[in-house]
């Protein structure tokens, strides 16, 4: 089924991943292989665990991992602090980006860029170099240049917040981008701009895991693979056609398939 060259090592390898939120088991054994250059869409009904999966990979402290393994470039990252994973190249575009009153967006970004560079044994970026790079990225993802002078997400509209996430992704150049329902709450124009940004950042060097409830965004960002998550497990995997099938038949169809299998 894989469309990429056989033998190339996976960027991300998830085996039997289980995780809980409080007393509730949400991920019940996830297996997934992602190679550089691939876009994987994770779809599923509400409560299936798809956002949890993205957040557990990023190391959100609200969840407890109870089993399994996650290798990122061959290294087990489950014990690493979220900031270490981030510096290694794991990026989470938040479903609900946080407001940081008084913290200028460019300062926030520069702190992220510098943390990553220092982690890689490089010098912090000079103010001038950063300024030029940021200007270029702002133009690339078509974001209002004033947004980076304002406080992070403070008073931003829903669409602006999501675009700001894409800008952060562009600036931080992750190897693995986890987009957590980036399409939620966007009107069609904003969806197009956000999708254009993501497509521009897509390359043979990085991979994207796109978590979404709706097939809509897949009209703009075409995935190599689509996985259907249901009750904490991946119950179906396929190509882009699977998303269309879901769109036509609805999630009840998946429920029926799973229930029939039991």
């Amino acid at each position, binding site marked *: 089924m894989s469309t990429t060259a056989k033998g190339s090592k996976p960027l991300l390898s998830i085996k039997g991943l289980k995780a809980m939120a409080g007393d509730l088991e949400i991920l019940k054994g996830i297996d997934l292989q992602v190679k550089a250059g691939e876009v994987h869409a994770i779809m599923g009904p509400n409560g299936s665990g798809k956002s949890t999966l993205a957040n557990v990979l990023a190391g959100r402290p609200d969840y407890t991992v109870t089993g399994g393994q996650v290798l990122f470039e061959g290294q087990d990252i489950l014990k690493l602090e979220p900031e270490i994973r981030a510096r290694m190249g794991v990026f989470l575009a938040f479903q609900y980006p946080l407001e940081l*009153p008084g913290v200028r967006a460019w*300062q926030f*970004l520069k702190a992220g860029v510098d*943390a990553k560079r220092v982690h890689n044994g490089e010098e912090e970026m000079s103010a001038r170099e950063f300024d030029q790079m940021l200007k270029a990225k702002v133009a690339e993802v078509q974001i209002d240049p004033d947004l980076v002078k304002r406080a992070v997400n403070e008073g931003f509209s829903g669409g602006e917040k999501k675009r700001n996430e894409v800008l952060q992704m562009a600036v931080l150049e992750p190897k693995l981008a986890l987009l957590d329902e980036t399409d939620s709450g966007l009107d069609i124009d904003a969806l197009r701009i956000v999708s254009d940004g993501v497509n521009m950042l897509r390359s043979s060097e990085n991979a994207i895991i796109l978590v979404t409830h709706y097939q809509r965004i897949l009209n703009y960002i075409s995935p190599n693979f689509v996985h259907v998550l249901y009750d904490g497990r991946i119950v179906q995997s396929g190509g882009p056609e699977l998303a269309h099938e879901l769109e036509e038949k609805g999630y009840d169809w998946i429920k029926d398939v799973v229930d029939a299998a039991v």
Partner: protein
Amino acid sequence: MTTPKVISRNATSSELDSEYKWGFTMDIESDLSPKGLSEDIVRLISAKKKEPEWLLEWRLKAYRHWLKLKQQAPTWANVEHPPIDYQDIYYYAAPKSDAPKSLDEVDPEILAAFDKLGIPLQERERLAGVAVDAVVDSASVATTYKETLEKHGIIFCPISEAVQSHPDLVQKYLGSVVPFGDNFYATLNSAVFSDGSFVYIPKGVRCPIELMTYFRINQADSGQFERTLIIAEESSYVSYLEGCTAPARKTHQLHAAVVELVALNDSEIKYSTLQNWFPGDKDGNGGVYNFVTKRGLARKNAKISWTQVETGSAITWKYPSVILDGDNSVGEFYSVALVNNHQQADTGTKMIHKGKNTHSTIVAKGISAGEGNATYRGLVKILPSAAGAKNFTQCDSLLVGDKCGAHTVPYIEVKNPTAQLEHEASTSKVSDDQLFYCQQRGMSVEDAHFMIINGFCRGIFQELPFEFAMEASQLLKVSLEGAVG
């Protein structure tokens, strides 16, 4: 005017590991009076300074008034401390050598200490444009830039020197804004004040450089009672900065200062403070009791602006105030008060509107970490004469951790129906989600806290001269050590 460089202290990450990096002591000989307070001590202080008779009389009046107040130290503030034994304090401690004529004559130990502090005393700082009056314990040790200032007719010197060289000015204005009987600590200060800064800006002069005084308590068990008097004549302008440190001592030290600002018609005084007195150790032992009275009088069209960043002291009790006396006068108060470990701060301002169309702005940011307790206490008073007065007040509290406290106590008295007052207040916590958001972009938990807290203070730091703002930001970082991460 080039942007003056104020302090060149470099807080590197390795320095940040130290608990209180300004906590070294200087090994210099001190000229100490006996412990305790009496009429004889007041006379001794006055005699040491060769003061004129009127000043001695003023001190004695204050001392006698203080005796009457002795059992009435204010108890309304939201702070707790054991009773202070005023007979167990040195009231006069000056470095022993006589006043130096130039930097070459300054005790090398003192210079080395200032080096550690990063105070710009040396010639190189001439380029940077700061005149520094450094007060160790009670006496002024060095004043730079005198000549530059003299060209403009600006007087910037120790107040003890001003008493000798400009007695008329001192006599006219000393106690004119904070009278000797004003409050318990101000009265004590009036009786025993030892030194401090004196600034006089002549009519129409815009002071070309930032003036700065650096205060430091060195002697153990000594009190510091400095007195600062700033007079801005009509249509003049001055920006004045003060920095404060004290060595780490096991016992508490008392600091009871008085600052008086006189802003005559159409003048402007901008007064910035970085207060970093020793806050005590992690368990609340030692630290400075910072009981300070600061007040400015603004005449017609005058403006007084207080900006303070309070990170030090075991206890801070301080309400820099403005009497908006003249029509159209403006008062501002911008404050960041941070408490960590067992620190307590009860601080705020008083804006007393007398003149017509007077405007005041209060922006107070309190940060509580560890087991610290921060209280904003403020008074906005609109007198019947203050038609068209306006006030805007914003009090924000930020909590770090779950053992700290934040309190807001605003008093509002309005006696004129045309006044307009606005009050906004908020209390927030650094949320786990905000921290995770920062971490997900590569920042450590500690850096994330620091960034969020800096953002919270941004509006205040913007009011500070640039280099001072950098310094303030570093101070916050050092002061938050151990509270986060």
